[in-house]
């Protein structure tokens, strides 16, 4: 009986302690404002952002609780938070996510209403447009990104070949690589995702229009253009320019920069975002070097077709209890010298003019990043792609058809027709 009494007392004490712990509030002094900010990134970005938040806290006396993860699972987490109305005050988002969370522009705080708290003059109109939905400024780009052609200079040197400067030269490199270096070497490589981006560029250079129109919920090109899309894949894989579907699949579900042929320079290039190329050059073995190739242009191209968009953006919660403070935090991270110095280049070259100048003056922008920025600045980019191009259902639609073509399950003709019909059908379903 005593034992029972002891158990009961212990359990009740334990339960009381647990309940007390659950009911505890944070130990911050009463009256101190507190914000929450979430982002994804690698450990160096985490470290830099935490340092910037510490400086913001010191400057403004506003506590900021950090919620950070890797990219995997971040969207699912944020989605659950937004759906459950527990989203942080400030969020790092992807450009495409605006269509998910704020299709009418009211899903995030309208930063236009807080212009006195943020210096918007540091951002060009195009960048601000990409964060604007139906007149509401929902998000501000941290850095911009474009898919550019990056090639392994070391492998090209080994083959005695120059970096291609046109589509035709790129096509010619396939057989040349095979002849000079062997079957396992390719002049350029990437996941289906990268190829879809490359083929989009090819088509847009011909049409001078975005590939997708959100207004008509359809492809903004002809059936013939989709035949060209499929034909490009067939040609590049057949001519040893791009590894075939079977060759790529043989490595399983693995990131390109972690594949052995990328690491040792056999897959000697990629069509990658300039904001993430360092991640790819970092994994190269030995002293191999990545170089930026001239952007290939079709004869009579109506536009560079460069896939250009913010690499990531900062947005504030539409229902935040501290809208002014949330906007001040965004301004601090993007424009304030203290914040900019702490954030460095961990999120790419900043869009903010003042931040860019500061980092450039301090010699922090690498030659590869400078070359990429210069190519971006000189390219004719009049066509801005619809965010729906990045919708997972649309991307997978492209991938499934190209994969079927790559495995010989459908002909080039059928692939072109299916690209046109199936992607249009998908767009009708997903564009709301």
């Amino acid at each position: 009986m005593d034992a029972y009494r002891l158990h009961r007392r212990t359990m009740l004490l334990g339960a009381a302690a647990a309940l007390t712990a659950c009911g505890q509030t944070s130990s911050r002094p009463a009256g101190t404002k507190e914000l929450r900010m979430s982002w994804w990134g690698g450990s160096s970005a985490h470290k830099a952002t935490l340092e910037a938040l510490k400086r913001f806290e010191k400057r403004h006396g506003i506590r900021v609780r950090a919620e950070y993860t890797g990219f995997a699972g971040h969207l699912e987490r944020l989605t659950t938070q937004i759906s459950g109305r527990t989203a942080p005050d400030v969020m790092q988002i992807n450009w495409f996510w605006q269509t998910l969370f704020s299709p009418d522009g009211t899903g995030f705080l309208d930063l236009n209403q807080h212009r006195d708290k943020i210096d918007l003059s540091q951002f060009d109109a195009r960048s601000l447009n990409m964060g604007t939905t139906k007149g509401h400024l929902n998000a501000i780009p941290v850095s911009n990104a474009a898919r550019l052609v990056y090639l392994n200079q070391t492998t090209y040197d080994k083959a005695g070949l120059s970096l291609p400067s046109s589509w035709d030269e790129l096509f010619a490199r396939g057989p040349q690589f095979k002849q000079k270096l062997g079957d396992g070497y390719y002049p350029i490589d990437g996941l289906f995702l990268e190829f879809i981006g490359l083929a989009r560029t090819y088509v847009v250079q011909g049409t001078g229009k975005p590939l997708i129109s959100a207004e008509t919920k359809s492809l903004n090109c002809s059936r013939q253009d989709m035949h060209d899309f499929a034909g490009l894949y067939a040609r590049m894989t057949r001519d040893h320019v791009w590894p075939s579907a079977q060759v790529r699949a043989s490595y399983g579900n693995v990131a390109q920069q972690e594949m052995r042929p990328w690491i040792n320079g056999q897959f000697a290039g990629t069509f990658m975002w300039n904001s993430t190329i360092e991640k790819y050059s970092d994994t190269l073995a030995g002293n191999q070097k990545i170089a930026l190739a001239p952007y290939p242009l079709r004869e009579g191209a109506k536009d560079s077709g460069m896939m250009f968009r913010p690499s990531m953006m900062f947005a504030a919660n539409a229902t935040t209890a501290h809208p002014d403070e949330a906007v001040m935090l965004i301004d601090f991270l993007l424009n304030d010298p203290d914040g900019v110095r702490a954030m460095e280049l961990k999120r790419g070259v900043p869009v903010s003019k003042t931040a860019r100048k500061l980092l450039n003056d301090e010699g922090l922008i690498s030659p590869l990043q400078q070359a990429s920025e210069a190519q971006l600045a000189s390219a004719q980019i009049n066509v801005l792609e619809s965010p729906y191009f990045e919708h997972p259902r649309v991307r997978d639609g492209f991938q499934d058809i190209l994969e079927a073509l790559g495995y010989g399950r459908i002909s080039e003709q059928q692939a072109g027709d299916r690209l046109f019909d199936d992607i249009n059908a998908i767009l009708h379903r997903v564009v709301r």
Partner: protein
Amino acid sequence: MYNNKLIGSLYVTPFVIGFLLFTAFPFVASFILSLTDARLQDQLGAAQFTGLANYTGMVSDSTFQKSLGVTFAYVFITVPLKLAFALFIAVVLNFKLRGIGLFRTAFYLPSILGGSVAIAVVWRFVFAGDGLINQGLGSLGIGGVNWLGEPTTAMFSIVLLRLWQFGSAMVVFLAGLKAIPEDLYEAADLDGASRMKQFWMITLPLLTPVLFFNFIMQIVQAFQEFNGPYIITAGGPLKSSYLLPLMIYEEAFKYFNLGYSSALSWVLFIIIAIFTAVAFWSQKHWVFYAQDRGDDKGGH
């Protein structure tokens, strides 16, 4: 007495709360969601009731049909193979040999490691085009196989990942083998029955309750396989390893179709329930329980 009831209730409270929150609530909620067009990024209140549309939509969803076919193939291949292999190893490890404990531990090790993320990553490395197996084949002068790059062999690689986790089924079989009375084998020896005949006439019938248990467990687990295809092949190539749990995950967390994903979950649940029910119904025809033996009623 009152105290005992109170303490007992307190002891089970954590389980009951956990069960209600993490099993019962999602179970009911997923069914309700399956009747709506709920999307993950919207407020739940925005979801529209769509009746059975998600279920009827599967009839014309070629991806679902492909995934269902692949899932059945996976289950029908892995379950019998795994049971047969586990039973074979259990019979071998039941022999009284020197150092048998060591062997039992060694054979159980893969099951401790299981089909975890880390093992799946290792599996991907082993079966990659330039992976361990092809390197081994290459050193013998044999051309490599595109294990992950061809639909048939990709499925084979995933199947093998499940097969190597035969340890838990093996341990249950081993326990079953130990419970079979020695006198039955002695009597069979006296009657001149061969080892093979003893296996078919004594071992296997008396193991059927264990076999039944293992069968149910393996069916349920195989239908729920996720790690292997997710990490090794991402369901490819050509969706040849796109098992239903992977499709459920992608519908919910990649495409945000919470309603459709919930409906898929319920279809998977119903399939597993049907298999389990059929197995339970059929057991009277093939499972031999000890109490069925007349001699057990009066004792020895």
